[in-house]
């Protein structure tokens, strides 16, 4: 049974979102089902410890080390896990490489799947109806809204995350960055360049 419950018990909670969350947190805490200190710890993890700086380190390393890049593109999960990037919503990672011929872009049309250990919690626009609805049908128009225009000779491949595979885009290394070390390169890698809706800093 799909259990369509037309009573929808959530309507018994206060309608205003902050009050609705607070009410449910209070009920669950009183019964010993959740611990407010646990919630603080979860929030601290995703607010301060896990974010796009992780993915940026992976990209900078791939730009610097051809052997690392080859392993990353062939089987990314153990490669990023060895750097400490594994866990919830990052159990199966696939890295897809942008080239002059092909640009990659990631979406989840059905919900909001996103590689948490590499990029953190997805930004609001990634979870928006507009992005979910349009990224698959008109990626070039969506890219233009991010200020990105691709040359006509470049095809676009959009990855709709319909299973537990989480995709990370490996953007092209900007020209003129030959002398930079990994830390300097990581600073060029934007979050959106790893989703495929942006380009690294310094890229044309």
């Amino acid at each position, binding site marked *: 049974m799909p259990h369509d419950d037309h009573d929808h018990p959530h309507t018994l909670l206060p309608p205003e*979102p902050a009050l609705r969350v607070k009410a449910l947190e209070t009920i669950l805490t009183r*019964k010993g089902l959740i*611990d407010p200190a646990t919630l603080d*710890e*979860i929030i601290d993890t995703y*607010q301060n410890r896990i974010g796009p700086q992780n993915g940026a380190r992976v990209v900078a390393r791939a730009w610097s080390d051809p052997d690392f890049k080859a392993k990353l593109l062939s089987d990314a999960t153990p490669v990023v896990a060895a750097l400490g990037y*594994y866990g919830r919503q990052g159990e199966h990672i696939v890295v897809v490489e942008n080239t002059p011929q092909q640009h990659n872009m990631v979406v989840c049309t059905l919900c909001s799947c996103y590689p948490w250990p590499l990029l953190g919690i997805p930004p609001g626009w990634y979870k928006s109806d507009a992005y979910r609805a349009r990224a698959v049908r008109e990626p070039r128009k969506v890219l233009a809204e991010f200020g990105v225009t691709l040359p006509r000779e470049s095809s676009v491949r959009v990855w709709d995350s319909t299973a537990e595979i989480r995709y990370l885009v490996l953007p092209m290394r900007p020209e003129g960055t030959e002398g930079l070390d990994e830390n300097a390169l990581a600073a060029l890698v934007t979050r959106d360049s790893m989703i495929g809706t942006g380009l690294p800093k310094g890229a044309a």
Partner: protein
Amino acid sequence: MTRVHDMGGRFGDGPVQPGSEDAPVFAEDWQARALAVTLAAGFLGQWNIDTSRHARERLSPKDYARFSYFEKWISALADLLVEKGILTQDDLRGVPDDQKHRLAAQALKPEKVAAALAKGGPADRPSNITARFEVGQAVRTLRPTANRLVVGGHTRLPDYAAGAVGRVLRLHGSHVLPDSNAHGLGEAPEPLYAVAFPSSELWADPEHPDDEVVLDLWQSYLEPV
């Protein structure tokens, strides 16, 4: 026919509003709380990720459309807690009952959070269903889009890709089948493929002849061409 969450390709949503990369992770504190309450409740171990996705999809279309992202989470969580018999409707009404819950011993402790999040929950499993398709092979998706085990049930084949011909790009191994797992019918692992579809196969007015959309699709969603 699927549900309101299945919006890929839909017209009418207007432009995407890209935010600053430096914007806070959570625009408002309650959103962070909604995420944390949902994850912490999930660690009680009374459902799986497919069940919780389906709970959000089962919000009424009106609620799904008007709720913001984390309102969907917290509302679907309340529905799921009642459906699973963990809370009662009286609990949600605020009728006081401070008895320790039978599941209280399962509650995730703060010192276990880092390990629990780092452990994750892989979805690949051994399976005795052999892979039927090879990389490069042409395949067609089922049409109509539907859960074939449960009427109106959870599925991960979007409507926009129903009945479309693509080619297998890669085999991901065998993964838990959401159509079964969301409904307590077992994990039923089977081969999972990345399948590439030309945009011209999916849309009446594709932007570019060489553009493609890739979807991860289970073997039972596919037929040989």
